[in-house]
């Protein structure tokens, strides 16, 4: 089997869907994992029509048994996977004290637990084979724990730390672990965040970049693996923001959240 394969979680929309199309076009066999089967089937039809190949595995990554099922089904078919993209995740913008507890718990479950679990399922096989690439979709929010994104920023900070530790653990094994720290990307992420209970519009939406730029960055990352990649690249500056201006931002308080633009 000369072709490579990739598993993309959260493939039914947004960055995941764009990456699925992109990798299939680049010759990967893509395993599409997400909850919404109809949307996955639609993406599959598009990919197949363009001559790519892919497989659909509808699953609710919120649930442990579902994640194990995906692992068993995919490895039952493919043996091993070459690229794991932990992309599934969602955001919410608003005061933490107004955040419904169920939502916070679900965010931790999808943004953190599912990433940990899928990684723990697929990483041993990659290490045994001495190759593989795990790509976690992080965010600059991981380094900028600002007002309105308490849990989201925390979950992305987790990905930063998790990735760095794993990158070091896997050094020399042939397995690469990376985090893509994205700025805002133009997807339904913001609509999702807005329409959840007590959610505000995310102000960063106006700076959003296209998914094509994320795909180009993904391709660079696959060819030249590294621990951290900022998209767009200049956001590498963002890591200094907290250090330089953290004290100032502290003084702003909930100012940014005052304007309740729904």
């Amino acid at each position, binding site marked *: *089997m000369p072709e490579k394969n990739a598993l993309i979680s959260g493939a039914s929309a947004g960055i995941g869907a764009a990456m699925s199309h992109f990798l299939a076009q680049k010759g990967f*066999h893509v395993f599409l994992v997400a909850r919404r089967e109809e949307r996955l089937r639609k993406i*599959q*039809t598009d990919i*197949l*029509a363009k*001559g790519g*190949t*892919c*497989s*659909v*595995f*509808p*699953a*609710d990554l919120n*649930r442990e*048994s*579902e994640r194990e*099922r995906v692992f*068993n*089904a995919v490895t*039952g*078919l*493919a*043996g091993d996977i070459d690229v794991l993209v932990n992309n599934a995740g969602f955001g919410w913008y608003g005061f933490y004290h107004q955040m419904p507890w169920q939502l916070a718990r679900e965010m931790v479950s999808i943004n953190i637990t599912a990433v940990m679990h899928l990684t723990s399922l697929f990483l041993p096989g990659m290490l045994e084979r001495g190759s593989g690439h795990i790509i976690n979709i992080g965010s600059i929010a991981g380094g900028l724990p600002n007002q309105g994104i308490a849990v989201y920023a925390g979950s992305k900070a987790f990905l930063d730390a998790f990735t760095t530790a794993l990158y070091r653990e896997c050094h020399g094994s042939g397995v690469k672990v990376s985090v893509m720290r994205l700025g805002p990307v133009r997807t339904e992420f913001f609509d999702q965040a807005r329409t959840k209970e007590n959610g505000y519009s995310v102000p960063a939406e106006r700076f959003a970049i296209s998914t094509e730029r994320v795909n180009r960055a993904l391709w660079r990352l696959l060819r030249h693996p590294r621990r951290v990649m900022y998209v767009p690249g200049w956001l590498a500056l963002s890591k200094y923001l907290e250090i330089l201006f953290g004290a100032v931002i502290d003084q702003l308080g909930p100012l940014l959240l005052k304007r309740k633009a729904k």
Partner: protein
Amino acid sequence: MILVTGAAGHIGNVLVRELVDKGKKVRALILPGEDTTSIYGLDIEIIVGDVLDPDSLDRAMRGVEIVYHLAGVISILPDKNDLMWQVNVEGTRNVLAAAKRAGVKRLVHTASIHALSRNWIGMINEDVPFDPNATAGGYDRTKAAASLLVLEAAKKGLDAVIVCPTGVIGPHDYGGSEMGELIKDWLKKKLNFLVRGAYDFVDVRDVANGMILACERGRRGEVYILSGWQIKVLELKQLVQNVIGKRIAAITLPMWVAKFGAKFMPLFYKITRRRPRFTDYSLNTLQSNSKVSSAKAQNELGYQPRDLKSTVSDTVNWLIRHIGKVHR
């Protein structure tokens, strides 16, 4: 080299798996844009083509000694009759012609128990004639007509055999066969509607094995029925319940109610695009004679179907692994 048409289908992918396990070199014919998940990761050659495109068949049969012809369309709805005729009959005609051109040594054609006449009293065996004018449904007519083409080609020099599987169930059902979808419903839905009736069901792996046996030992121009065991719908449900250890809630409809409802199913399908379970065709099938004998295949080929208990258990476990938790 072995060519399998319809390789990504239910019987197709299981046959390919069996052949690969036996160390054979396999080439799989798939349609452009077809979902190939079922044969992903197998050490085989994949060639894109269409049984309706003779040129692609010539390419596919280059260097091929054995052809397993499985490509076909199955529908229990009447509105797919044109497509079924094209693929099942004209497609088979093209495959036979291409096989002759390529000098193929043996061709195994997959017909169906439905290709045989339904007007038969008593045990169904290979004496039952193919009925290209069957009234039961388009699928039956196309499968019968295609089989007659194969018999004619066998008379004219092509070394071909025909197998007739009954109702196929089993694991590796990626495309969602009629029976697989029914069992999936039982696992997922809170309430199901059933009808009384019975049919003969056979394990997909036994069908694949039977086809390989027919290829190795079958006599030219002969038909072999690959059947399993006759079972009532309610008994099948009981077997599924035994595997999952839970009761499946179901209401058994009187046949006349189901038949009345079936009148509206083609319309229902047009509106919702959801595949119906109860159609005139499927209900008639459940009521038809399903006492089937595979004695010929057993005696001549050494075919031996496994019991349905293990089939159902493997099928349900496979489905659960692929569709997730049982929702109840």
